């Protein structure tokens, strides 16, 4: 079985991002980049599927050289191969999906796993787009996956207020949600072993972006809190404000 995990290299959630001088992108200086947390679930799931049913796990990333760090992590966790679709330009979800789909078509995997979204631009679009471009079935926001023979799988999805199980035929595309699994730490042996596994570089030919970022803004700074008063006497005023001004009750 050929299992592909698509992984993105994104700013650490702890990083305080600054908007760059162009007002349209973030300032990368001093920002710590990590594997996209949802993609870590994707890698882990592929590794578990391989451990159960055999096959090979390939990690694929589109981006510049720094993405190799994330691919190395996937290799250290246990992926067999890594491929960098080398591309340094700013990309929207559509052109990323197109470039990945073109490459994945050639690779023809049985299972393609994404994270449900990248925490950098939060589009949550690439997985679904790739499935569409390849004409494959897909299940998104997956919290469980069982193979049913070689050609079918049942995915458990999170839906509003509950879970649902959907059956798909393989090959198929899945996007991982938190809760799917507990990603392993790469072991020290895995990290040393990953040094010997090559990262293959390919030149993708992505199309033009379909969207363009015009500007980026930080959220407004929080205003100071308001103390309505003290004691029971203040309660009615607080209720009035929550109702009429904040409109939350």
């Amino acid at each position, binding site marked *: 079985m050929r299992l592909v995990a698509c992984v993105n290299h994104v700013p650490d959630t702890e990083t305080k991002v600054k908007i760059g001088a162009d007002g349209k992108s973030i300032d990368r200086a001093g920002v710590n980049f990590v594997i996209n947390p949802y993609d870590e679930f994707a890698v882990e799931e592929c590794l578990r599927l391989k451990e159960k049913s055999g096959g090979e796990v390939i990690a694929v990333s589109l981006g510049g050289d720094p993405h190799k760090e994330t691919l190395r992590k996937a290799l*250290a966790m246990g992926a067999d191969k890594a491929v960098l679709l080398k591309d340094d330009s700013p990309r929207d979800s559509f052109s990323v999906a197109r470039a990945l789909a073109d490459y994945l078509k050639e690779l023809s995997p049985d299972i393609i796993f994404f994270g449900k979204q990248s925490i950098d631009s939060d589009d949550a679009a690439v997985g679904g787009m790739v499935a569409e471009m390849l004409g494959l079935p897909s299940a998104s926001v997956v919290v469980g996956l069982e193979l049913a023979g070689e050609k079918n799988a049942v995915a458990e999805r999170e839906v509003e207020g509950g879970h649902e199980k959907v059956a798909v035929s393989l090959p198929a595309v899945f996007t991982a949600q938190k809760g799917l699994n507990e990603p392993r730490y790469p072991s020290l042996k895995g*990290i040393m072993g990953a040094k010997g596994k090559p990262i293959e570089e390919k030149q993708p030919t992505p199309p033009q972006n379909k969207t363009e970022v015009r500007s980026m803004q930080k959220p407004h700074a929080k205003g100071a809190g308001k103390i309505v008063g003290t004691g029971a006497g203040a309660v009615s005023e607080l209720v009035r404000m929550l109702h009429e001004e904040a409109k939350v009750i």
Partner: protein
Amino acid sequence: MPKFQGVDYYNSDDLLSEDEILVRNTIREFVDENVIPIIEKHYREGTFPMDLIPKMAELGLFGSTLPEKYGCAGMNNVAYGLVMQELERGDSGLRSFASVQSGLVMYPIFAFGSEEQKDNWLPQLASGKAVGCFGLTEPDFGSNPGGMITRAEKVKDGYVLNGAKMWITNGTIADIAVVWAKLNGEIKGFLVEKGTKGYTAPEMTGKHSLRSSVTSELVFQDCRIPEQNILQKSGGLKSPLMCLTQARYGIAWGTIGSAMACYDTALRYAKSRIQFDKPIAAFQMTQEKLVYMLTEITKAQLLCVRLGRLKDQNKAKFTQISLAKRNNVHHALEIARMAREILGANGILDEYPVMRHSANLESVKTYEGTHEMHTLIIGEDITGIPAFV
């Protein structure tokens, strides 16, 4: 609490390779998720977190510089040091466990043991199925281990050990003890298995330091061990000292971890604690302390990377390792004490890690050669005059 982001004022990460950084970050994450949330409780109760042993083993933390054929990772010394740094950022007790298992038990078996001993013990120790301890210090012989009283006597089919060791990390929980004893006047290493008749390892109590580490006595009363349990290639005080060189190297790195935890805590506290209508970080005396901390951490980092590269080239002298152990522990302890001062009364609470690190570092300053002994080791090296007696 926000996630620890590292301290790197001199871009010393640029001196590390991609995989060294991945090793460091992996252990950092492991410690944040598995150690920091539980360690204060263990410290308070005076227990070692036993359930971390299989987790550390799975990561490959034990004997990680030894060859793969024994189930080890075959890492270089810089990566090993970074592991020690991150473990000790969690707690010195945890680093002590890993230091003893790797540098003081697996290393002597690897360096002085027979093929059968290596094949038998190294995979068990690497996988955490067996825990080891190292018995050198005795009640009356600490800085002067050459005077040890513990004796081994050759008998038919083996040896009989008599004597007592004290202050032995992991003693009570160890499946295998590397014990140093005099055989016909020469110091030799022996492997003593848990449960051997005549061998007991009661735990020492009453510690105000390294409380989340097990410290024990080892008592040998006509303890008979089989012939094949001698570390045949060991001989003289040099052998245990070679082990200590490994462990001291790990301490030099480890204490950077304690120091970083204390600095990070103090810096954040100083920026948020208001007195006289200002954050206390605005006072010159607080800034002076923070700058001292950062300066010493930066120097210690550079010292260790250089030392690690020398060690990887087999060029590190034991005196250079003494210099790094002596310097880094001393400053880590000063940093912990200063952090405690910056936190004021809060500094003594177990809500913050500084008092625990400070108390731990009091032991670290003494074990693996006291600060003074390392002074004398380096002093002898540069003057040619030994000043031990």
